[in-house]
């Protein structure tokens, strides 16, 4: 069996002074090196779940937590958020809220987490240069991070998370505020890191993107998992609409064509798959 990056067992959470549970009885696991996507409507608990992975719940947000979350085999209860940050990193939606506000240059911002760990300056300089190159922000290293565009600021947020060398990346709608091209750029980097062995857990509303990247998809509805499987399994499931999720356009169209017997009865969830199916359908009458 694969080693597990994240293991969630019967997890429930309710924020302080709220009446309903944000998460109830969630169980699933993420194998090391996989690309795992969590989808569902707004307010179903996706962000809350992401926050537990990095220990922000229960160490930062107040509330009542039951069940267990293990990161690389160790319970998050036994570790501080700072300890966890060397194993798992979180990038979320608003890039400017992911700036420390202590830095006047991008370089200082990238180095901030290292400073909190007491990393020596020479090593810091090296790591900053490497991460800046990876994120393609070496041109703006001397700029004030608060003056950057949203897209660049999100790259900085990525860089400052990634410089701590986590083996797991949690991306909570991290490209929502970027234009499609900017988002594509960032995901190209994410995909590369995933190929190099980094586990990725991603929350996103762009189903075409989810279908393209995910090994496994978990569908959440009202704080509970309702569906899990490969993109083909999840997006082929007829109950999907009930859970407030629409399959990628490619899946819908190949399904419609297959129903009319125009193409082979197969689900094409990515563009590549759909193109192949349609081309084949055009050549052979079914």
């Amino acid at each position: 069996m694969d080693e597990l990056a994240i293991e969630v067992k019967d997890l429930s959470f309710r924020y302080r002074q709220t009446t309903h549970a944000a998460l109830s009885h969630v169980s699933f696991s993420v194998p090391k090196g996989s690309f795992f996507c969590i989808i569902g409507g707004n307010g179903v608990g996706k962000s809350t779940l992401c926050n537990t992975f990095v220990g922000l719940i229960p160490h930062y947000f107040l509330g009542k937590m039951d069940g267990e979350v293990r990161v690389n085999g160790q319970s998050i209860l036994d570790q501080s958020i700072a300890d966890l940050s060397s194993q798992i990193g979180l990038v979320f939606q608003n890039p400017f809220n992911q700036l420390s506000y202590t830095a006047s240059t991008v370089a200082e911002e990238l180095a901030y987490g290292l400073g909190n760990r007491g990393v020596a300056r020479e090593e810091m300089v090296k790591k900053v240069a490497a991460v800046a190159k990876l994120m393609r922000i070496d041109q703006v290293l001397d700029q004030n991070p608060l003056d950057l565009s949203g897209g660049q600021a999100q790259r900085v947020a990525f860089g400052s998370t990634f410089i701590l060398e986590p083996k797991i990346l949690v991306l909570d709608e991290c490209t929502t505020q970027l234009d499609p091209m900017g988002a594509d750029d960032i995901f190209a980097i994410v995909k590369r890191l995933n190929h190099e062995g980094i586990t990725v857990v991603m929350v996103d509303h762009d189903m075409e993107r989810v279908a393209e990247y995910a090994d496994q998809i978990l569908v959440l509805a009202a704080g509970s998992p309702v569906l899990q499987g490969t993109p083909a399994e999840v997006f082929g499931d007829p109950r999907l609409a009930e859970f407030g999720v629409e399959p990628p356009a490619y899946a819908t169209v190949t399904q419609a064509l297959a129903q009319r017997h125009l193409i082979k009865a197969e689900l094409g969830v990515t563009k590549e798959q759909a193109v192949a199916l349609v081309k084949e359908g055009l050549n052979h009458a079914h």
Partner: protein
Amino acid sequence: MGSGEPVKSPIEKLNPLTKMLAIFCLGLATLIYPNSWLGLGIVIVLFGVAGIAHILTSFAKTIFGFGIPISLMLFFIQGLYSPKNKTIIADLGFAKLGEEGLLYAAKIVITLLVFLATFYIMNQTTYAGKMVAALTRSGINPQVGYLILASLNVVPQMHRRLDIIKEAQEARGVETTGGLWARLKAYVPLMGPVVMSSLTDAQERGMTLETRGFANTNVKRTSYIEVTTSKADTYLRAGLIIFLVAVIIISIWMRWAQ
């Protein structure tokens, strides 16, 4: 405070702690010294320092811009109405100008000017991040460092936010021009979103700090900003302390001699 501009002058190269020591020593010396002449001398020397730091024009503007009105104000208040006044130099009809009050006012003005001038030079030639890095190295709590830097950085950001909110509220019919009452009524719709969104943003920023190890307790923090203590720093620090001690001794002697 200055932003991340490249090091240009020898003053900028100095360790921020040296400059803080200079504010303390020069200011205190002026305060202790029985008359205004030492302070005046220091201010003149500081004009030279400002010249070396390439900030002479703005420095002069600040010093005169502050110095002239406060001098007039204090000469008026203390010169004419100070209860200490005994030696009358002139009678203006509505009030009498007294020497003691004038001297007292001059002392206050010159002391303030020394503090203002040293403070201004430090401020203009020291990058805030470097100062906090220097303070952190010398052992202040990293949380204090965070508070100083974040307060400095958050304000311009909130200004921008305020501009956007102003537009957003105008688009919902809030008048931001017109009579006093209309403008006062606009205050809450503009301030409300600033406060509310800043507070919720801060909670998210806290998440970021946590996941970057801000709460790490058992580690000595390091910084990307290089802070060095050069020979010039060492000599200057020694010089400043010797100067202060000398001024204290001379002041005591002068008072005793009276």
